[in-house]
Every structure is written in C-alpha cells, then in structure tokens.
C-alpha cells in the first residue's frame, strides 16, 4: 500500500489540493486570492514531485489499470506547468471580464487531475472515468462568462457533443470487452497477438468507436465542427487550456488507443491497412480544412481553432509513422511539447486587450501595434513565427521532425501535401505580423495592456520557443525513446 501511495504521490497531492482549494474558497467567500494561491501551490508541488520521480521505473498499480511511467510523470509535470502559466496569465483577464471566482481554480485542478489520470490509464473503464473527470470541468469553464450568450452556447455545444462522445466511447469499450473479455490494455494487446483472425468484427467496431471518440476530442476533420464555435465562445484562458492541456492529453490517449491491438501481428495486415488508410485520410482532410479555412479567418480565436485542426493533421502524420515497425512516437511528443509552449504565449497575449479581456480578438485589433506597444509586437511576432514554422523557433523543428519521420516511412506524398499546407497557412500567421508592423492603427482597434504576471508568462513562453528552437536537444533528450505502451 505504501508503495502505491509513493508512486501516486503527485496525483494524490493534486487531489488533496483540490479539496484544499475548495475549502479555502468556502472559508473566505469574498476573496478569490486564497483559492488562487492554493491552486498555484498545489500545481507547483505536483509538478516538482512528478519531475523529481521522472527517472524512476514505470509501475503498474491497481491490478494494472493505471501505469505510472516516465511519460505519464513528464506529462503530469507539463499539465501542472500549463496550469500554473494559465493561472498566472489569466488572472487579469478574469478580473476584467468580472468572472474571477474561486470556483475557477478548483475546476481547473479537477480538469488537470482528469487529464493526468487519463494519460496514465491502462484500462478502458479507468480511461472513461478520467475522460469525464477532465471534460466536466471543461464544459463548465467554457461557459464561465455567464452573461455572454456565446459563452453559454459554447458550453452547451461542448457538453452535448462531449456527452455523445462519451457514449460512443462506452459503446466501443463494451464491444471490445465483448470481443476480448478484458478492458485492460495489456490483456487486449495479448489477445490480439494470439487471435489470428485479425480483426474480429466486434473488436473492430469497438476499436473504431473508441478511436472516433478521441478523434473528436482532438478535432480531426471531419470531427472538428465544434471547435471554432467553442473556442470563440469560451473565456480565452480556457480556450488556451483546451488548446494545450486537453489537446495533449487527448492526442496521447488517441495514440494509445490506436496502438491498442498489436497491428503488426500476423493475420492483422488487412486491419492495420484499414487503420492506416483511415488515419491517412483524416490527416489529409484535417490539413486541408485547417490550412485553407484559416486564411479567411478574422477572429483570432477562430483562427487558432483552425490552426489547431491543422496541428492535428501534422500530428497524425507522426501517428501514422508510429504505426510502422521500429518507429517511436517521440516526434509526436516533441511536436506536442513545442506547440504547447507557443500556444500558451499566444492565448495569454490574446487576453491582454483593454478594457475587457475578450475585446481584442479580432485581427483589426492588432493594427499598428508596433507603435503602441513595440515589446508586445516582438513577442507576438516570435510566437507567430513559431506557429508558421519559421526556423530558429521550436515550431520549425517540431514540424521538421514529424516530416522527417514520415518521409522515413515512405509517406512522401503526404509530406509533400503537409509541406504545401504549411506554406499556405504560413500566410495566415504572418498576416497579423504585417498588420502590427506595417499598418497604422485602425480607429476601432482595441487597447492593449498586460499586467506583470500576464507579460511574465508570455516572456517565459517566448524564451522557451526560442531556446527550444535553437537547442531542441534539451527537449528531445527527455522525450526520445519513451515507450508509449508496454
């Protein structure tokens, strides 16, 4: 028992932190500071504990339904970091929007706990519970701007669709259980090695359903329709959390679920081809939708919603490469990490408009920014360069590595398409820079003003983007060779 507690320490601290945060917010109802500080402390301790344990060997606990490994520890640390950055960076936004409530913080912590368990889950039932623990607070947070109808609409859409996805996932799990007699990943994997029938229809249907549930979560086109609406309506820091924390947790889980059966086992060739074709087609559709529609967007939040759809496309290139024997998923992980650092900065920058936090999200609000706020312009530019994949930023690398791994597995036509999409969509990322640097301010453009912590978070993320662009080895070192399964 002691060992289980020891292994699960970061998660337990996080859970205790949720209770503490709830408690302090009840004790002092009129102030939100205690809840904020308690949340920050919880996240710092969680992050430090998981980083500290990073090199310890992996351990399966609770009859193998949860496995704590280097990957899950590093992901939990990343989630805590994202949480810290958004707590610090979103502070002023919440105040400006008059939605600064203590509930925000414990909901955020619950969300992080759900994501943290989800990436450690090795059992379909545990995974489902974790998914719901992560999603329910996310629905609430999306509707946090209670007086704004778009925010309400976003929350309801997100909730209804999310609920349906949960159902799809459960149905899929039931099918898989029916076919294999287990919900544990290792047992399912073992079953697939022994079953030479290669894709018993019941299993196949179940596997497809659970994959679809997560394809929805990562908004791979054509499962992406919810994303622009929800992104636009949700409070900006919450959008940021969806785009980083939830996206990483969901994609990692998607990779796990795709690898659920041993696709290289004999007799599974047809099935493996079907899976590959599906992923390849969805990658193509996501890339096309993401990078073409992004050009026409005028609202920054919608723009980054489409951006994240095309990111999903690039990630699926990496996922496809990981299905080939001998290929790991490190390009996918590196891509996710790189994207997170740029996205945190961008979403926090977006909250810096005045007088309200949600006024400066149209492209026109950026016009002439270099005159009004040169430093902020420089920050914006570096982050947008990273999104566009310019060299010397982390965004270049992560794309580059995914492309390389994909070329190595013979997916050259797909890489050509992806490179083309990268070139086309770069226009959408560089146009805002043009507006900031080469245009005089539009009379209707929003005012900008950060506040120390918000600016601090952006600077941290810019430093990370540049540092990891120059020295990606610092990141690769931690992420390479991490086995995803078994």
């Amino acid at each position, binding site marked *: 028992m002691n060992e289980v507690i020891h292994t699960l320490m970061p998660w337990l601290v996080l859970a205790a932190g949720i209770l503490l945060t709830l408690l302090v917010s009840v004790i002092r109802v009129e102030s939100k500071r205690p809840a904020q500080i308690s949340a920050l402390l919880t996240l710092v301790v969680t992050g430090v504990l998981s980083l500290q344990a990073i090199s310890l060997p992996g351990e399966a606990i609770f009859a193998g339904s949860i496995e704590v490994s280097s990957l899950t520890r590093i992901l939990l640390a990343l989630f805590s970091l994202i949480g810290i950055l958004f707590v610090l960076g979103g502070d002023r936004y919440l105040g400006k929007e008059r939605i600064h409530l203590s509930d925000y913080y414990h909901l955020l912590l619950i969300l992080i706990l759900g994501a943290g368990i989800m990436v450690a889950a090795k059992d379909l039932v545990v995974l489902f519970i974790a998914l719901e623990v992560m999603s329910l607070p996310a629905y609430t947070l999306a509707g946090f701007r209670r007086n704004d109808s778009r925010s309400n609409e976003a929350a309801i*859409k997100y909730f209804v669709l999310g609920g349906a996805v949960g159902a799809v996932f459960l149905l899929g799990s039931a099918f898989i259980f029916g076919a294999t007699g287990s919900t544990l990943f290792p047992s399912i994997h073992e079953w697939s090695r022994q079953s030479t029938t290669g894709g018993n229809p019941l299993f196949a249907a179940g596997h497809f359903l659970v994959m*679809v549930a997560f394809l929805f979560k990562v908004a791979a086109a054509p499962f992406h329709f919810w994303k622009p609406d929800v992104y636009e309506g949700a409070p900006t820091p919450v959008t940021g959390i969806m785009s980083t924390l939830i996206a990483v947790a969901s994609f990692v889980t998607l990779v796990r679920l795709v690898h659920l059966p041993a696709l290289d086992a004999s007799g599974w060739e*047809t099935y493996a081809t079907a899976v590959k074709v599906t992923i390849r087609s969805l990658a193509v559709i996501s890339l096309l939708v993401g990078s073409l529609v992004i050009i026409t967007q005028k609202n920054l939040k919608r723009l980054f919603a489409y951006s994240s759809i095309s990111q999903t496309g690039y990630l699926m290139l990496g996922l496809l490469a990981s299905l080939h024997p001998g290929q790991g998923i490190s390009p996918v992980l590196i891509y996710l990490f790189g994207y997170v650092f740029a996205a945190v900065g961008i979403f926090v920058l977006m909250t810096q408009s005045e007088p309200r936090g949600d006024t400066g999200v149209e492209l026109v609000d950026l016009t002439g920014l270099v005159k009004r706020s040169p430093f902020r312009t420089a920050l914006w530019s570096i982050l947008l360069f990273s999104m566009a994949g310019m060299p010397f930023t982390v965004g270049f690398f992560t794309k580059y590595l995914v492309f390389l791994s994909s070329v190595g597995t013979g997916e050259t036509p797909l890489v050509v398409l992806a490179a083309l999409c990268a070139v086309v969509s770069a226009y959408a990322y560089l146009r805002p820079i043009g507006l900031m640097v080469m245009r005089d301010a539009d009379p209707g453009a929003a005012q900008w003003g950060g506040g120390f912590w918000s600016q601090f978070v952006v600077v941290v993320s810019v430093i990370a983007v540049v540092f990891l662009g120059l020295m990606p080895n610092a990141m690769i070192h931690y992420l390479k060779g991490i086995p995803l399964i078994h």
Partner: protein
Amino acid sequence: MITSMILFPLVGFVINGLWSLGSARSGRRVPPSVSGAIATLAMAAAFVSALVARSQLPSDGAIEVECFRWFTLGTLAVDFKLRLDALSSLFTLVITGVGTLIHLYSISYMSEDEGAGKYFAYLNLFCFMMLNLVLGSTLPQVFLGWEGVGLASYLLIGFWYREEANVSAGQKAFVMNRIGDLGFLIAMFIGFKYSGSLDLAVIEKAVLPGAVATSFVLLVFLACTGKSAQIPLFTWLPDAMAGPTPVSALIHAATMVTSGVYLLARLSPVISQSASGMMVIAGVGAITALITAVIACFQRDIKKVLAYSTVSQLGFMFAACGVGAFGAGVFHVMTHAFFKALLFLGAGSVIHALHGEQDVFKMGGLKSKLPVTFWTFTAGWAAILGLPPFSGFFSKDEILHQALVSRSGSGWVFGILLIAAVLTAFYMTRLYLLVFFGSPRMEKSKFDHAHESPAPMALPLVLLGALSLAGGFAGEPVHLPHPEAALSTPAWVIMIVSVVVAVLGATIAYRRYAGGSASAEPATDVFRIDAIYSRVFGGGLRATASATGWIEERVVQGLIRMVAALTDLSGNMIRVLQVGSAQAYLLMMVIALVVMVLYFLKGMVQYGNL
C-alpha cells in the same frame, strides 16, 4: 574566426533592435549616425574575420567549427556546424565586404529617417542570416538562413510601410518565396531519404537514381527560382525596389538573390547527375536573361531598370550553372556583386541629389553636377557591358564561352545569351545617357540644387568602382569542376564576339538617346506578366481559400443545419441557444463514423475476414 564573423552582425542586430524597441516606447529617437556606426562597425569586424578566416583556409580543404549539437532523433544527429571552404569563403567576403560599404553608405542615406535604428537592425539581421546560409554545413542550417534572409528582405521592402504599394510588394515577395521554399523543403526530404543524412558534405556526394535526381534538381531549382527571381517567380524582385535603395543594392542585387546560385554550386555534384534537370536550368536561365533584358529596355524608373537588369544577370548565372560551368556562374556572382551594388548606390546618389526623383526621363545632364557618381557609374556601366578590362568582361565572357563549348551547352543557349548581352548594352547605355548626358529635363530649381553626396556615400562608390574595374583579374575565384568541352572554339573568338555585341548594343542606344531628346516611352508591364499572375495565382489562392471557407461555413454547415432542423420538431429551444447546430455537428459526426465503418466493413468482406 568563423564564429566571430557570424556573431558580429548578430550582436549589431541585438543592440540596434533592443535600442529601437526601447526608444519606440519612450518616444525618443535613436540617432541614425550612432546606430549606423554600430551596425557598420559590426559588419567591418565581420569582414576582418572573414579575411582572417580566408587566410587560414587550406588551399583545397575546409574548416569546420562545431558550435553545438542541434538535434538528435534516433540515429540522426544534426550538429550546428559552420563550414568554410573556397566557395563559402568567397560568399562571406562578398557579403561582409560589400555589406560593410553599403552599411556605411546607409548612414548618410538614412540620416533623415526616423526609423533608422530599426533599419540598421534589420540590415544586420539580414547579414547574419546570409552568413548562416553560406556557412551552414547542413541543409536545415542553410534553410534557416534561407528563411531568415527572406524575412529580413520582407521587412526591409515594406520598411516605408505607409505606402500601400510597398506593403503589397513585401507580400508579393513573401508569397513567391514561399513557393520556392516548398521546393527546398521537399528537396531536403528527398535528399535525406536517399543519402540518409542532412549534411551537405554527404548529400553532395550522394548518387541518386535517375528520376529521383531529376526531381531533386528540379525542386532545388524551384527554390532557386523563388529566391533568385527566375521565371516564373521573378516578378517580385522589380517590385521589391520599393525598399530603400541601399537595401536594393545589398539584398536584391549583391547577395540574397545570388543564394540560388550558391545552392546550385554547393550541390553541383548532385545537380550534374541529371542532364534533363541541367537543361531546364540552362533554358530557364537563358530565357529569363533575355525576357527581362527586353523589359528593362522599356522602363522609366531608374531602379526598375536596374532591377530587371539584375534578374537578367541572374539568368546569365543560372545559364552558366545549367551548362555545367558552376565556376563561371560563381565568378559572375562576384563581379556582379561589385558592379550592380555600385550601380544601385550610384542610382541612390542620383535619387538623393534630385530629392526622390526616379524617372530617367526627368533627369539628364547630371555629369557635371555629380562628378564622383558619374565616374564611378561609368565604371559600373563598362563592367556590366563587359568592356575589357572591367570585371564584368571576364565573367560574362567565361559564361558565353562555356555556353557554347560545354558538352551540356548548346548553340541556342549561347545565341539567347548573346542577344541578351546586346540588349544589356542597349538598356544600360540608354540609362547612362539619359541620366548623365544631354540637357536637364527636370525643373530648373531641382537641377540647381542637385549636389554630390557626402563622403560616407561617395567612399563606397569609389571603392566599388575600383573593384568593378579590377575585380575581374582575380579570375575564377572558386575552382569547381569544369564541364567537358564539346567544341574547341578558342576563347579569344568569344572574347571578340562578346565585345562586339556590347559595342553594338551601346551604339544603337547612342544613336537613339545621345541627343538627350528622349521622347517619353510607355513604361508598362511589358509582357503583362504581373497582371496575368495577379489574376491567376493571387486570385486563385484567395478564391480557393474563400471557397473552402464558404463551403465549410455555408454549404456543409448549412446543409446539416437544414437536416437537423427537419429532424428536430421541438423548435423554440433550438433557436434560443442554437443547439440546432450542435445537433447538426453530431449528425455530421455520425455520418463520418458511418462512412468509416462502412469503408472498413467493405475491406473486411473483401478480404474474407467477415
């Protein structure tokens, strides 16, 4: 030394960049002379480092400096490594040498401009990136420089951003370059796939299967057509002249636009493996040289003449590479850097003297007013015509010679280049006569107030003039393998021919323009290429994007909204919260799911698993 060469401009960029960011906030201007001095000193120091590095270079070897390990992935390890050999050393000398002079010139040229600090920061950034491009030892590093110079160029073209035309010129340059970059990226992946490495030294030696070699060469060449403004991607360069004139001289004449030639020369062993690829390069180069020379004959704007002339001269360089004479191409890069930078700076001096006048038909008789500019411009004029003993003579003659005698050359490449050479002599003499001779055609007050540029602007002119005069005696600076000769036409025949055509072109121009009685000519988009492009490509891309957006937002969502509205009869709630569309999204999801499952079941049935 190599490291310090690359670091000096970076330091200059950081100092000027931070300073002008800081001053923009406080509202105080950065004094142009101080920031100019910092930038120029940074470049001069880089030039000295380049000289020292050159002197340390073993005669036929290379120096490598490992900076740090850039990234590792599996077995692939890519170091951030600088590699100096004869080829890159030549380019570093040109970049830092000509760069220093142009920085110096800019101090006076930009002295009135409130954004001078920003200007010098960008200029230093450009040089840093350009050095990365030529010193990079791996393709990703070259790509870093390749993108970086594009960025700096984009920023500098749009430097005077209050004019709409400048901004759109910047965007045009950007879009055309991105098309080229796509070629670079894909070529890089192909190179990696077949050689297993990203190191230039390895890829250079790679032997690619026939079809792969051709596609590799064509993709690399696509990248070059973007960066070096060749057909079909050349129209951005004349528009890029919207930037300050020293920028045109440095980036859009002497250095960045020649990086395509650098890349071809660097990869020459691989490029030579594809005969058909080479033929395309030679053909495109020669035709570009000809067409843009024709266009240059019809331009009124002094900078546009020089811009089209640059594209045309780049065409000569590519034609040289295409016939296998990479050395001759690189030689012309060097001499062209001297005389074209000189011509641009001379043009800048004229424009400066006439307070912004750029129309050659509103100039004339400036010979006596601007003696230094006149004499140095004369040297540039003689060099581009290819009159002996000026530098252009040696390199152009070598290109023409190789185009004729090389095994991969041919009569028609030679012929086209020869016609282009006649035209070059024609339009340059036309420009020269219209600007400096005849009677003044501008307002009298403007003519009277015209005065020679101050010393910091005159000094670079004189130095570049000297280089344009004597630079050719250096001979081919880099010894790249010569193409096999198929003909034995002696070199002196070609020399005579090339001098004769230059004199011929100049004479025609003299007869037409010597009186200074220049009737105004139409200055238009001669072949209507710009108009066609903007309609086809610009419109096309925008149309595709907005069509997709429209389909996405209206058709697909509209359709499913309609279906949803039909299925749902409980109306009111939906309209209030628009849950209708959420249900529509769900419906879409289910449809996609069904399609996937059907596809999948079909596969299973087909293979008898079901």
